[in-house]
């Protein structure tokens, strides 16, 4: 049984297509993050799961029951919003029990739930306060508490941390992670922040233009991005994508950029389909953190590049190199001294590369 299953779901607002043939599945207890740039349809998808938006095509199943025509309140879900959406005229207690009162839960049960959750979230001292008297972090806690008291099957989070300042955001992120570890509930979490997505998700679905680009574990998303969009979106700075051609001779594949004599051997790469590789136009992808200033393993590819720019950011520095007139960024510890405008010996870790078809932009 899948806790949440979305089948061939499409949605448009007028003539604009917002979601196109979305298929998703979540197992019990998993934490799915919907990640993407603004306007990619991730929030719309969440609203559809909640029942707040109508569907044009396709279905949403919760516990294998088609809930496409079920009211939000009957879907056994709870949602936490970006603006917290606490009812301004009610105090914390009333905010938290509003849903239970609507559902006509008995008074004893309501009190029991309220006590359990408010203790758990450490908001029991705030119960009589109005939302306007709470700090951002406290509001967030109450909003989560309001969702928790309902004991839903699925938690929906709509960018819950984006209204907090940087420090609090990291704290609340850890709290949400802890919460999930303790309660083991199923979560769907929308964000545009890749760090949030990576650190929280057991699964990440990366979306762009209403289409899921890749739905995978954080490790696979990072190591094996399925197309150039994912490769570019994840990582900071993002993956270097060098344009060039593959060359295949006597079963050995290598990569050459246009008009250059640097030939990068590609031996250990796990091709999806290993034919017609010769002369194929591709993007050679390598992350800045997989370029080293000294040899890290046997297969490292050694190359001399000119350093053009250095960005110091405290614990590390981002260097820009010139690779046959294409920019290559590398991340080094800030203790390393590299002279600008001079050639430096660099090592590409070839076990960590990705190759993409230059036409389809898909991983090959």
């Amino acid at each position, binding site marked *: 049984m899948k806790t949440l299953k979305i089948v061939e779901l499409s949605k448009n607002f007028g003539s604009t297509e917002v979601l196109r043939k979305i298929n998703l599945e979540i197992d019990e207890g998993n934490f799915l993050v919907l990640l993407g740039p603004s306007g990619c349809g991730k929030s719309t998808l969440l609203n559809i799961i909640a*029942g707040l938006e109508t569907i044009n095509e396709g279905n949403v199943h919760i516990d294998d029951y088609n809930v496409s025509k079920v009211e939000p309140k009957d879907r056994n*879900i709870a*949602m936490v919003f970006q603006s917290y959406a606490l009812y301004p005229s009610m105090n914390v207690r009333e905010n938290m029990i509003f849903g239970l009162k609507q559902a006509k839960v008995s008074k004893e049960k309501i009190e029991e739930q309220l006590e359990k959750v408010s203790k758990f979230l450490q908001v029991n001292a705030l119960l009589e306060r109005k939302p306007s008297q709470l700090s951002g972090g406290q*509001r967030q806690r109450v909003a989560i508490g309001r969702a928790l008291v309902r004991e839903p099957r699925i938690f929906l989070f709509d960018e819950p941390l984006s209204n907090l300042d940087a420090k609090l955001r990291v704290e609340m992120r850890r709290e949400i992670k802890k919460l999930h570890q303790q309660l083991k509930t199923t979560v769907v979490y929308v964000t545009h922040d890749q760090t949030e997505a990576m650190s929280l998700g057991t699964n990440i679905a990366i979306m762009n233009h209403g289409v899921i680009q890749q739905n995978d574990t954080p490790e696979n998303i990072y190591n094996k991005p399925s197309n150039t969009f994912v490769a570019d979106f994840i990582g900071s700075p993002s993956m270097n994508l060098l344009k060039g051609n593959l060359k295949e001779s006597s079963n050995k594949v290598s990569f050459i950029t246009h008009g250059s004599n640097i030939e990068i051997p590609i031996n250990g790469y796990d091709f999806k389909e290993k034919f017609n590789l010769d002369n194929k136009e591709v993007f050679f992808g390598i992350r800045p953190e997989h370029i080293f200033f000294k040899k890290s393993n046997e297969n490292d590819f050694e190359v001399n590049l000119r350093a053009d720019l250095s960005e110091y950011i405290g614990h590390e520095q981002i260097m820009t190199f010139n690779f046959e007139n294409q920019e290559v960024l590398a991340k080094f510890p800030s203790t390393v001294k590299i002279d600008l405008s001079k050639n430096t010996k660099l090592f590409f870790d070839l076990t960590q590369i990705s190759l993409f078809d230059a036409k389809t932009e898909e991983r090959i």
Partner: protein
Amino acid sequence: MQDKIHSSYKQLEQKSKYTNMFLRWFLYFVLVIFALYFIFPLYVMVVTSLKTMEEIRQGTLLTWPSGLNFDSWLVAWGGRGYGAGDTFLKPYFWNSIKMVVPAVFFSTFIGAMAGYVLTKWRFKGDKWVFLFLLFGCFIPYQAILLPMARTLGVLGISNSVIGLVLVHTVYGIPFTTLFFRNFYVSIPSELVKAARIDGAGFFKIFFKILLPVSTPIIVVTIIWQFTQIWNDFLFGSTFSFGEAAPIQVALNNMVLSSTSVKEYNVDMASAIIAGIPTLIVYVLAGKYFIRGLTSGAVKG
């Protein structure tokens, strides 16, 4: 070198000090002039209403009254106590109250509901509905007099307070809707979403969640509607006469129908009485008026 720079700074400092001082005094001067200009008619009204006819004839407009003489106020409110032709404000004052209270209540309530629907329960064509409502704000009163008279006639409520309540309610809805719509636009729709997930329905969300935070705009709407309806003369004089007339119509009749001498003191007292309720509303709720008009989002 440094001394030279410093002394030039000093000169400029002095200069701007004098300029600022002059501008400040000029500002006060202008403000005082305007204040006198605006208070002058009120002064004349109050002073005249406290004089006897004898004093009015002998003194000038500005002459101080000989004492606090409220006789003309009593006459304006309760009449002289003789039968026919004795027009006084009391019954019409209550007519106006009976008209203004329900009309303000209904137009405000319907406007709040409409604003709620237009912002939080969007439907196909809602923009057009709002546009047509806005159009209602710009239709001149005179243009609807005839059709409205016919409508009231068909409904059998012409020349009645109920008829006036209906007219003012209908005519107020475009304004009240506009106020409430603009206010509710600034309230995050996520509140409504959260409430829907919590299981609250259309009315529950309105009454429990939106209405409690609407105080500023409710006050603005009430002041606006109260002033409009209380001060209205055209609808009152067109759709009612005699006993059903509101106070502004009665005031007009009273001032115009005097037989022999113009009793300026009674006229002035009547005019002040007719204006007092709106003054009270402003004084009680005025601070909300500015706040409500300028308020942005009500943050949770």
